[in-house]
Structures are given as structure tokens and as C-alpha cells.
């Protein structure tokens, strides 16, 4: 059983790089946004160079692959979280930096960033298409494809994509069409829900209970005929389940059906649509792929493919659009029914003209009749697919499974070849590049931080090259428990990340009720917030639909779930066995490792706030429409919002209606304190360090307990719309996603009618993440202090590239931000033709260079900027500036000092002039025909360099002997057989 977190078998030419695990990386110098690559590997047009986005290191790595395996030529620092690289020409690459919201334009011969293009939020992919060729850049957050003229870097147009999070891009073979996969496209499932009423009102009528509903008003309806399967636990006979909504899904005939073939079409789109708050004709087009005409920029959509369209490619022979991703069966109710089978891994083949499609299950060996199959079958599964790449003749499609750690191959019809095995790669394989001339496929293993070289003829991995990876070990250790589908599921295709995608959400609601379970009684450890109505003292197992919650910044904010019914992440262990059908759950240590990892996942910079992280005062509110309750007619766009005014509304203390009575800043969560009559005091942590964030019971929820939810990702939920016939999403706000818009939420909850006041409040809610709020006094009983938020200021990642000294004002702005907020400022550029780095020291007002002895004033540094010696300034999370700017391996020795001393700035064990106390710091570099090995020698201590071709060989062969003084020694092994593994060791001479 493959259970190891760090793979022990490094198929390749060495054994020594475990030394990298000594790196002094932690969350103090590494902020984890938990972004994942989109197109992180690119092959140069002449097939001699491989470019790879080293996402955690914020660099673009360049390799020579003429030898059939990658040989490093160096790296270039780009922006934060580079996720995509594409060659525009043989010498120019464009890199999409997801957090920086920028495109780094890299000159390959000189290995430098020559320009930085600021784009809309969260650029994910870039392709070049059309005639003349234009750059098409998918920008996820606001649903845009930006079109840029690559010759002058001016924006040609912004194409609004009618879908949530356009991500992966591809181009038709003739270059006339760009395809954009809509990552969170939904799956034509939606909710029937009571919606929202004022907080102290009783819930509104639940359409499920209407006598004209398919079940005559029975709530919950049976899920199999007239029965519940599995049957109710006898103990529930005296505990009727709460009234809840229903999830329905549109079938091929356009009928909205539940999991028991109940037909709700009339309630969703028909004459009775008003009974579910919808307009007649309401629909969810379920756009999956945007098809963009590069000449006219008109857009068509392919629909009905899957829920998460993770990656796409175009078959160059047929022009067929191919999409890989996952589809969920969230319309099926109850956790015992969904156990192990809740997600399918799919490949969609889409005709580029008619946009008709065929969707195939990429795991045909699974029949989903059982939640658990033998390990041999699990290992055949592919999970969390993140790339598809076609051979030039269109007969082979290569698909990586980021969660399953493997590679599968399909034929032109989408059927898997070699159904008895997969090609195992490193952890988290994502993007690929195909060198057909040499028969090699290169895969970036995101979690492991390595590149696998696959011999596509023999379908074996011939080389795995680790990249320098500053990811803290706490992340690497716990991450597999979120993603690894083979490790954590009974069928090998699912994991926590199937729903908590990239640590976030799938945008769906699930009814994970359990008829076989029992009522859980709430004990006194729960912290019920003000006001204090009577508590309905239980958590019923038939909880009804609940939307998937993000995992960002949850640790330390216990309890969990919408209802607060899990007091600790340890209580989620049951999900591994009872929902993912993992044969055994995690042990206590593994759960702790998962917890430690999840604790690192923070929120991205808020794209609604200006660079100084203040609240915007004139914010355009995309997709927010009046409901007709104020002066504006229904459907009119809301006016621009003033988030500062919105904050004032939010913090009004008008019991019981003030938002701030429950939601605290800066997270929106409830307080972790109790008011003792005089002031707020911290509730003591539980023995396992769990917190006690507030839970509230409100009449509108039938006085059932709910945790006060955080408010930092509200824009991510926007997209459902009951007032129009083309809703992007099927789920919106509130625990079951039953409130379509934030406008309706705030107006129905707090009875606002003023359009401007509504706009202001929404502007504030969209601007919520980013912290920076005024401190809350401890003695105001209506205004509780809240827990801190793991987020970063709005300017995080912001960068500019300058080529002259005239840009001092822009630089001064960045210096001001680095001085006055939680940001560091780094610079990369050239001095005297040499690549250099700098880190701004606010206390001294100067830039520390990557040579300890060198500092520069801002003006002095800027004076080095010139065409060919451009400088790129980047604001990075506080604490990470020194690492990113001047000390890549965080070993305390600055990068240029290390280079000056022939040390390796990407190896924390390689340091200059450090008299080692023992032999160590071994590293190696591959070149065609040779392996160069370097290590530190200890004065007076002789050593032997030895090797084995197989670790099972009985004896080591001595390659060289050395007795040397202090410092780095190197030896080249010229006799290693090509494409074979060899293991090296250094021992003290006898």
C-alpha cells in the first residue's frame, strides 16, 4: 500500500537531495495561498528548452532537454504563485502570476524579466491566437479573458465570460479560436429552499412542504420510492428532522429532478417558479467551455460537461476540444448512499463546431456499486486531473492526476489505453510538455516539487529531477491527506479535495444527512453568541443540504461545519471512512499533520481593495442588481458602493439587527470570547487547543444552532440569480445556498430598501478580507472582538518592472506600503550584467542587496535600471521578503555571497566559508554524459565518494578519495550509464 507521505523511491541518478529537507522554511517566511498550477510546463518551439513554473519558489526554471532529460540552465524570479508559462516566440515567455495578478515577460537568452504586465485578478493562463497573434489571458476572479496586443502590451478588449472562474485555455489548430475552461462551472444542480427571512423572524415557507410538490409536502421526501434508504435509526422516531431544502438537477430532457425521480421542473422553471423565488424560464445554462472567436471576440459556450472543468486541450488532428475534470452527484442524498462514489473523473470530447459532447468516465474499472475496491484497482484510478495533452497525430492523450499521482493515456476516442496500469509519477503531477522527437514527456509534480521525465515509448519514468522548493515541511507532510486519492479513498478517485478543491470549495451544496445516525446533544462547551434565545438543544443527523465550505483559515476557528457540529478537525476523521470509503481512517498523528497543513492555508489578497488596503469608496459591483425595493427598478445595476459607509452600516449596534452583533471583524466569524458583564474575556481553549467561536440560534433557522460564518469569500459565492433566466450558479448564499444574491441576503435579513445603502454594504462585504480594521474595545457588549484573519493586504504580489530611473514615484508608493503595512518589498534585476536581488529594509530606508556588504538607497538602486537591465519590484507577504529577495534557501547566507563563494543559494546546506563540522551538503548536477557532485569537506578529514547502481548491490564502488581543506569539493562521474539510476554516498575515509 502506498502510504508514505514523502516518496522514498527517487527514481533517478542520486540519493542525496534529502538534504533539502533541512531548509529553514516555515509559515513565517512562506505564506501558503494553496494555489495550483494551470499550465506550468512549456516546451520551446525548437524543442530544446523546457520552461517550468516553480510555483512555491516564485520562479521560472529553464532546462536544456536536448539530452532527453532536463538539465538546469537557471531560473528567473517572476511574480507570486506563477501557474502558467507559455512561449510566445523562441526567445520570449509569458508567465501568469496568480497572486501578483501580473504577467512576467521573460527574455530567454538573457534569463531576465524584461516587462511586467498588470492584468485583472488571478490570471491563470495565457495563450496566443488570432491573426495577428494576440495574447488571451484568463483572469479568474472577475470572469474575464483579457486580450492584449503582445507587441505594445496594450489591452485590446476584455471579454466577459458567463461562468465562474475561467481558467485553462487552449487554441484551435488553426489559431482562430480560443477555448476557456470554466473551472467552477457548476453541474446544473440547484436548490429548492425556503430562502431568507429577517434574522428574528421565523423561516419562510419551505416549498418542499407545499401540497403541490412532488411528494405532497413530505419533508424530507423519501429517497427511494416511498422509503428512506438506509432506514431511519429507531432513536429518531421521536426526533423529527428539521424542514430542509432539496437539491435537484437538470436532466438531458431539461427536467429538474431529484434523486427519487421527483420532478420539480414546474417549481424551478415553470409556472410555479415564483414558489421558489425564481422567474419563469429560470435556467442554469451550465456553461463549461467558452469558445472565443479571435477575430470578433464573440463567445459561444459548450455546456453540460462536468462540475469542475480543470484542464483542457485540443486534439490537433481532429480539432476536438477535450476537457478533464470532475463531476459530482450532489443531487443524490445522504452520506451513506454517497459513501465513496460521490465524484466521477471525467473526460469530455466536444465537437468544436456544433459543441455537442460526449462525456466519458476516466475510471472505467469502477462500477460505483461498492465504495471500496482492492488496492490494485484503486491504484488504477486517476483523481483530480489537472492536465491533458495530445500527441501531434491526435492518437494519444496524456492526462495527469494530481490527486492520484499518476499518468494515464487515452486514445482519440477518449478510452484509456493499458487499463491494467498507470504510470506513477511524483506527488501532485500537473502540467506536461511533450517532446515527441525524443520520445519524452515532462511533468511538473507540484506537491513534490520535481519534474518527471517519461519515456512515452516504453511508458516509464526515466528521471525525476527535484526543484528547489521552499515549501515548509508542515505543508508537504499534511498536504497528501487533503489531495491523495489513492491514499484516502476506497475507489482511488476521490479525496477531501474533490469538494474542497485547492482547499476551497466546489461551489455546490450536498445533503450529507445520515438516517442511520443519532441526534447529537449540544453540551455546555458551546459558545452561544448574543442574542441568547432558547436553544434547540441538538444536532439532528438529517441536516439537509449544506454548501461546501472553504478550508482557508479554519484552524483555530473551531467549531466547524455550518452548524458548528464538529468541535475539532479530528472529528472529521470519520469522513475518510464514511464518505470517502478509505479502508482505515487516519491515525491521530496523521490527523494532526493534516490539521497543521490546513492551518497554513490563507486568503488571497482582496482584489476589491486599493493597493493601500483601505476600503474602497467607489466600488463597481459587478453582477449586483436592485430588487426594486428602493428607488431603482428591479434588475437595474446597483450604484457603485462605498465600503467605508458599508462598514458603518455593518457596525451599527441596533439590537437585534446589527451585523456586528454576531459577525466580528476581521474575519466575520463569531467571537471566541464571552462578556462577563464588564468586558469580553477569552474562553479557555480546550485540551486540544480547540477554540470556541460563537454559535447562534435564530428564529429564522427554527432556533437550530449555526456557527456564525466567516465573510471573507462572499464574492466567490456570487453568481446565482433568481431574477434572470441564465443563472451562472445553482447555489448562492446561506448554509444551503438558497439565497441567490447578496442583495437579497442583506435586504431580506435586515430589511434594507435603500439601494445606495445596500450597495455600500455589499461593497464592504466584498472588501471584507484583508484585515486592517480599527481595534474593538473590550467593554462594548454589542461589539465583540473577533479572531484574527489569515490573509494578506491587497497589494500582496503587486509588482512593476522598470527600465529607467524615472519611476521613483511608483517605487516610493511601494516603499510606503512596505513601510506601513504587512508587506515586504523585494527587487530583482541586474547590476553590471549580473542577476541580483534586493530586499527593502524599512527601518533603515535602504535596500539590502544579496551581498551582505552592499546596500542601496532606493534612488541608487533605481539608477541601475536600464533597458536590458530591468528591475522588477514586488510586494510580498511580510516575513517572506528576505527569502524571496536575497536568501532563496533561507540559510542565512545571501544569494550573491553564496555564489561569490561557489556555494549554492538554492541549497541551505551549501554555505560559504562555513567550516563544517562534518562532511555534508552533497549536491549534484546532471549534464549529458556526466554527473557533477559537490560536497563540503572538513579540514583534515578524508572521505570517500562511492556509488552503487542498485541499492541491493552488496558493495559500494569507490569513485574517488579526497582529503581536503575547508570548503566545497567537486568530482564528476563520467562513467554513469545513460538513463540509469546510480546512488552515491560520501563516507569518512577509514
Amino acid at each position, binding site marked *: 500500500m502506498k502510504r508514505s507521505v514523502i516518496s522514498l523511491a527517487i527514481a533517478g541518478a542520486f540519493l542525496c537531495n534529502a538534504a533539502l529537507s533541512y531548509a529553514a522554511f516555515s509559515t513565517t517566511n512562506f505564506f501558503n495561498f494553496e494555489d495550483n498550477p494551470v499550465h506550468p510546463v512549456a516546451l520551446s518551439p525548437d524543442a530544446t528548452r523546457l520552461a517550468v513554473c516553480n510555483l512555491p519558489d516564485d520562479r521560472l526554471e529553464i532546462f536544456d532537454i536536448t539530452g532527453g532529460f532536463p538539465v538546469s540552465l537557471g531560473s528567473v524570479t517572476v511574480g507570486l504563485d506563477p501557474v502558467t508559462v507559455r512561449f510566445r516566440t523562441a526567445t520570449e515567455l509569458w508567465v501568469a502570476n496568480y497572486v501578483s495578478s501580473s504577467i512576467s515577460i521573460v527574455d530567454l537568452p538573457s534569463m531576465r524579466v524584461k516587462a511586467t504586465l498588470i492584468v485583472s485578478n488571478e490570471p491563470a493562463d495565457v495563450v496566443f491566437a488570432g491573426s495577428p497573434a494576440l495574447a488571451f489571458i484568463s483572469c479568474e476572479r472577475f470572469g474575464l479573458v483579457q486580450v492584449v496586443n503582445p507587441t505594445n502590451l496594450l489591452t485590446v478588449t476584455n471579454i466577459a465570460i458567463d461562468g465562474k472562474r475561467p481558467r485553462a485555455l487552449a487554441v484551435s489548430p488553426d489559431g482562430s479560436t480560443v477555448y476557456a475552461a470554466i473551472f467552477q462551472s457548476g453541474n446544473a444542480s440547484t436548490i429548492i429552499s425556503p430562502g431568507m*427571512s429577517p434574522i428574528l423572524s421565523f423561516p419562510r*415557507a419551505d416549498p418542499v412542504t*407545499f401540497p403541490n410538490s412532488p411528494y405532497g409536502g413530505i419533508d424530507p421526501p423519501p429517497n427511494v420510492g416511498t422509503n428512506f434508504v438506509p432506514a431511519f435509526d429507531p432513536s429518531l422516531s421521536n426526533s423529527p428532522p428539521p424542514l430542509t431544502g432539496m437539491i435537484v438537477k437538470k436532466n438531458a430532457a431539461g427536467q429538474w429532478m431529484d434523486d427519487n425521480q421527483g420532478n420539480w421542473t414546474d417549481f424551478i422553471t415553470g409556472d410555479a*417558479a*415564483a414558489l421558489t423565488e425564481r422567474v*419563469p424560464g429560470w435556467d442554469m445554462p451550465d456553461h463549461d467551455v467558452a469558445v472565443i472567436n479571435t477575430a470578433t471576440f464573440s463567445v459561444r459556450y459548450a455546456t453540460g460537461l462536468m462540475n469542475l472543468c480543470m484542464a483542457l486541450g485540443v486534439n490537433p488532428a481532429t480539432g476536438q476540444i477535450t476537457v478533464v475534470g470532475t463531476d459530482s452527484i450532489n443531487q443524490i442524498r445522504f452520506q451513506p448512499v454517497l459513501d465513496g462514489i460521490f465524484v466521477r473523473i471525467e473526460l469530455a470530447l466536444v465537437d468544436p463546431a456544433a459543441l455537442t459532447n460526449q462525456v466519458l468516465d476516466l475510471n472505467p474499472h469502477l462500477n460505483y456499486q461498492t465504495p471500496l475496491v482492492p488496492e490494485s484497482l484503486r491504484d488504477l484510478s486517476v483523481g483530480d486531473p489537472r492536465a491533458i495533452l495530445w500527441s501531434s497525430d491526435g492518437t494519444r492523450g496524456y492526462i495527469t492526476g494530481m490527486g492520484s499521482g499518476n499518468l494515464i493515456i487515452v486514445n482519440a476516442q477518449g478510452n484509456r489505453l493499458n487499463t491494467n496500469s498507470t504510470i506513477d509519477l511524483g506527488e501532485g503531477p500537473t502540467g506536461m510538455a511533450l517532446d515527441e522527437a525524443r520520445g519524452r514527456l515532462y511533468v511538473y509534480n507540484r506537491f513534490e516539487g520535481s519534474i518527471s521525465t517519461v519515456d512515452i515509448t516504453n511508458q516509464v519514468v526515466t528521471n525525476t529531477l527535484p526543484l528547489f522548493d521552499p515549501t515548509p515541511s508542515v505543508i508537504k507532510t499534511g498536504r497528501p491527506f487533503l489531495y491523495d486519492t489513492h491514499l484516502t479513498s476506497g475507489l482511488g478517485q476521490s479525496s477531501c479535495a474533490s469538494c474542497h478543491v485547492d482547499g476551497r470549495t466546489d461551489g455546490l451544496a450536498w445533503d450529507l444527512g445520515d438516517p442511520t445516525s443519532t441526534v447529537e446533544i449540544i453540551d455546555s462547551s458551546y459558545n452561544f453568541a448574543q442574542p441568547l434565545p432558547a436553544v434547540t438543544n441538538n444536532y439532528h443527523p438529517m441536516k439537509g443540504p449544506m454548501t461546501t465550505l472553504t478550508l482557508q483559515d479554519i484552524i483555530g476557528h473551531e467549531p466547524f461545519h455550518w452548524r458548528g457540529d464538529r468541535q475539532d478537525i479530528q472529528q472529521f476523521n470519520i469522513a475518510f471512512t464514511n464518505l470517502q470509503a478509505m479502508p482505515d481512517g487516519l491515525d491521530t498523528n496523521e490527523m494532526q499533520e493534516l490539521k497543521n497543513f490546513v492551518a497554513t492555508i490563507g486568503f488571497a489578497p482582496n482584489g476589491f481593495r486599493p493597493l493601500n488596503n483601505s476600503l474602497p469608496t467607489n466600488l463597481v459591483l459587478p453582477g449586483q442588481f436592485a430588487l*426594486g*425595493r428602493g428607488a431603482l*427598478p*428591479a434588475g437595474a445595476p446597483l450604484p457603485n458602493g462605498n465600503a467605508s459607509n458599508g462598514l458603518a452600516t455593518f457596525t451599527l449596534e441596533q439590537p437585534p439587527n446589527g451585523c456586528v452583533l454576531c459577525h466580528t471583524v476581521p474575519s466575520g466569524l463569531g467571537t471566541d470570547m464571552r462578556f462577563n458583564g464588564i468586558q469580553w474575556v477569552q474562553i479557555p481553549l480546550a485540551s486540544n487547543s480547540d477554540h470556541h467561536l460563537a454559535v447562534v440560534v435564530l428564529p429564522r433557522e427554527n432556533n437550530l444552532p449555526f456557527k456564525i460564518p466567516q465573510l471573507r469569500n462572499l464574492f466567490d459565492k456570487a453568481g446565482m440569480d433568481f431574477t434572470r433566466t441564465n443563472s451562472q450558479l445553482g447555489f448562492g448564499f446561506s448554509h444551503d445556498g438558497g439565497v441567490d444574491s447578496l442583495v437579497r441576503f442583506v435586504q431580506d435579513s435586515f430589511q434594507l430598501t435603500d439601494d445606495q445603502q445596500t450597495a455600500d454594504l455589499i461593497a464592504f462585504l466584498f472588501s471584507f478580507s484583508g484585515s486592517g480594521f480599527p481595534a474593538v474595545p473590550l467593554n462594548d457588549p454589542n461589539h465583540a472582538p473577533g479572531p484574527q484573519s489569515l490573509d494578506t493586504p491587497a497589494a500582496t504580489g503587486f509588482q512593476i518592472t522598470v527600465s529607467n530611473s524615472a519611476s521613483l514615484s511608483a517605487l516610493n508608493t511601494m516603499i510606503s506600503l512596505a513601510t506601513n503595512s504587512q508587506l515586504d518589498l523585494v527587487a530583482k534585476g541586474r547590476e553590471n550584467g549580473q542577476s541580483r536581488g534586493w530586499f527593502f529594509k524599512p527601518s533603515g530606508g535602504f535596500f539590502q542587496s544579496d551581498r551582505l556588504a552592499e546596500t542601496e538607497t532606493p534612488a541608487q538602486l533605481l539608477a541601475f535600471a536600464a533597458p536590458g537591465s530591468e528591475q522588477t519590484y514586488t510586494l510580498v507577504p511580510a516575513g517572506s521578503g528576505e527569502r524571496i529577495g536575497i536568501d532563496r534557501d533561507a540559510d542565512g547566507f545571501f544569494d550573491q555571497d553564496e555564489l561569490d563563494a561557489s556555494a549554492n543559494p538554492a541549497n541551505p546546506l551549501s554555505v560559504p566559508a562555513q567550516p563544517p563540522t562534518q562532511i555534508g551538503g552533497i549536491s549534484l548536477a546532471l549534464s549529458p554524459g556526466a554527473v557533477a557532485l559537490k560536497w563540503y569537506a572538513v579540514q583534515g578529514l578524508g572521505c570517500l565518494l562511492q556509488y552503487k547502481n542498485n541499492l541491493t548491490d552488496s558493495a559500494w564502488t569507490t569513485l574517488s578519495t579526497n582529503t581536503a581543506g575547508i570548503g566545497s569539493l567537486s568530482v564528476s562521474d563520467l562513467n554513469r550509464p545513460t538513463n540509469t539510476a546510480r546512488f552515491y554516498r560520501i563516507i569518512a575515509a577509514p
Partner: protein
Amino acid sequence: MNIRSPILILSALLLAANAGAQRNFSVSAAANAPGSVIVSWPVQSATPTGDLLVLPQFQLQRSFDLKTWTNLGAPISGTLHQTLTVADTNDAPAFYKVQSIISQEYAQLDNVTLDSGQLSGADFFGAEFFGATLNGASLNGADLSAADFRNATLFSADFTDATLFDVEASGALFDGSTMPGVDARFGDFQEAILFSVVLSNADFSSADLTGADLDFAVFNGMKLDSNTLMDPKPTLIWQIVNNGAPGSNFNFQDLSSAALFGANLNRATMIDADLNSSELNNADIRNANLTGADLDYVVFQGTLVSNTLMAPEWLLVWKIVNQGATNANLQGTNLSSAFLENANLHGALLNNANLDGTDLSGSDLRGANFTGANMAFVELPGTLLDATTVIDPKSLLVWKILNQTGNGLSLVASNLSEVFLANASLRGANLTSALCNSSVFSDADFTGANLHSANFALSELAGATLVNATLTSANFNEADLTEASLLGSTTNGASFINTTFNDTIMPDGSIRNQ
């Protein structure tokens, strides 16, 4: 849905008649040629001038027997005031009618005005009426399922037999509306004002009436089920009305402001119960025990009383109401807070009687003698007085103001303290330095009046109109100006210490709440 409203109009051969949902609607029919009839009518809005235009479609129908009606062509529509004409080839005697059809499912009518709209039978399924005003509208038979009436004002609207299934009406104002036979299942009426609404035979199964004001609501035949949410007091009233309560124990219960007419309370025990203002007309309280009960303003008309235990003064009130009190000797009696509306007190001796707050509206007071009676706050609208009535000058002035109007009267320095002048019309009156403290002026009209230096301290002025009035140096300390309008008034030197402002329109048009 798609309910069509029969509205109109019979036309016997060539004669048109008016009826139904369209106000002042006329149809004409004329012989065009042998065997040909021209029927024509003007297009007009279903709402009065000033409201939102609602132009129906029209369907002409013909009948030869007034039983079977046949559509003539498809529904037609036109522009406002356009005359629509339909020719019918027919040479037999026939009747014609024009049916108006209002089909506005899902209409966006937030905040519009549809007062007095003739919207009977209209189809407003799923329509949005948030904040709209439909006072006096005719919505009988209309389909209002899933409509949104939150914050809407619907005073005295007619919802007879309308469909209000799953309606959203929390906070809506339905005062005085009629809702007999409505289908209000699953409706949300939380905090709605259903004051004095007729709910007879309405179906409120699974509806939410939590917090709704149901004072004086008529519950007879109203259907509730186990899922209906309603506060305990109206629930109790509903049970009494619909299930009867003979022999029940209501000691100390709050049964005030309840429409209990016709209720069976025989043998009920209501010791110290609060029945203030309740309607017990035609109720059976024989053998009941109402000892200590608050019976202020209780309506006793037709109430069956026999062997009933209640305070002697209330038995006296019952007698006056039901048996009359012509020439009766009521000297020194306590009739305060009694509901004696339309009582016959012709020639009654009420010397030294306590009539504090007694409602004598519509009573016959000719020849009555009120010498020495406590006349504070006595309600005199519609009462009959003549020269033989002996009454104090202050009460006589109040009577004149109420029954002959006080418009333009000179009331300089008059004493109008502790009087009941609700709904009085005092437009342009001169109340300079008048003593009006501690009086009831609710909904009174002081438009253009001069209240300079008048004393209105502690007075009730809720809903009063003080538009363009002179309020200089007047005293409104501790007065209640809830929903009063002071628009355009001059207030220099006026005193408003501890005055209640609640949705009060201030001189500059702003709304004040305090």
C-alpha cells in the same frame, strides 16, 4: 393562474350596461347593418387617475341565453382612451359582455400606487408589490400566489376569495381589509397588520402569522392547521370563535380587542379577564362569570345575558344598549368608558353621571340632562342634541366642532382641554392661546389653522394634519405627534420637550423619529 375576471356587462341586443371591475365602464352596441352588430368600448385603466396605469386586455363574449357565453375572437388590447370595436355577425337577439383580463404574472410593481384599483380576478402570480400602495383596491378573486407584499399598504382592500398561497406579506398593512375565503396557505404574514380584517372562511394552513396584529380580526370559519404559526392570544380568540367556549375558564386572560360577536361563552368563567373593547355583540354570556373583568368599551348589542355575573354598571350598560334608556333616571351613575354608540338616551337624566371617556357616538341625546356630569373625553360624534338637551358649554362646543365642523372658527383662548376631538376638522380655525392640553386630536385636521401660543401639552395628535399651520410659541410638550404632518408649518418659539415623533413629517418634509 390565468384566472379571467368576469366583469362586465350585459348588453341586451343593442344596449350596454356597466358592471364589474372597470370603473365607469360603458359598452355600446349598434346595428351596423342587417345581421351585423358593432360593439365598442373605451380602453381605460383599472386604476384611477394618478395611479400606475393598468390596461387590461378585453374579451368580447356573446350569449343567447345568459347562461352560455362564447368568446368572439381573441382578447384584444389598446392604448389608453382608445375605443375598441368588434363587429359581430348576428341577427338573433343576443347579449354581449366585455370581460377585462389582467394577467401580470411576475410583474415588477414594487413601490407603485394602485389605490382603489379595480383588479378583481387579476393574475398577479409571483408579482412584486414590495412597498406598493393598494388602499381600497379590489382584488377579489385575484391570483396573488407567491406575490411579495412586504412593506405594502393595503388598507381596506378587498381580497374576497383571492389566492394568497405562499404570499410574502410580512410587515404589510391590511387594516380594514376583507379576506373572506382567501387561500393563504404557506403565506408569510409575520408582523403584518391585520387589524379588523375579515378572515372568515379563509385558509391559513401552514401560514405564519407570528407577531401579526390581529385585533378585531374576524376569525369565523378561518382554517388553520398544526403548521400555522400564530401568537397565543389570537389563537385563543380563534378557538373561542370557531370552537365555542361554553364553560371554559378564561380567568385573567387577555381577550381584549377581540371580535367575539356571536361567540358561545355560556357558563364561561372570565374573572378579572381583559375584554377591553371586545365585540361581544350577539355573544352568549349567559351564566358566565365576568366578575372583575375589564369591560371598557365592550360592545353589548344583542349579547345574551342571563344569570351573568358582572359589575352592576356593566349590566346597566347592557340594558341601555339593548333596551334603551328613554327618560331613564341615570343620575349619578358611572358610565365611564362605556360603549353606548347609537344608544337611545332621549330625555334621560344624567345629572352628575360619570361619562368620562364614554362613547356616545350616534346616540340620541335630545332632552337629556347632563348637569354636573363628568364629560371629560366623552365621544359625541353623530349624536343628536336639541334645544332641550342640558349640557355644559364646553361639551356643546366640542359637539359643534365635531358635528358642524370647526373650520374657520374663532377659538381664541377657548378651553378644549381633556376633550375628545378625534377626526375633527379645524382647517383655518383660530386657536390662538387656546387650552387644548391633554385632549384627543387624533387624525384632526388643522390645515392652515392658527395655533399661536396654544397649549397642546400631553395631547394626542397622532395622524393629525398641521400642514401650513401657525404653531409659533405653541406648547407641544409631551404630545404625541406620531405620523402627524407639520409640513409647511411655522414653529418659531414652539416647544417640543419630550414630544413623541414617530414617522412625523416635519415642516421641511423630512421624517422624524425620536
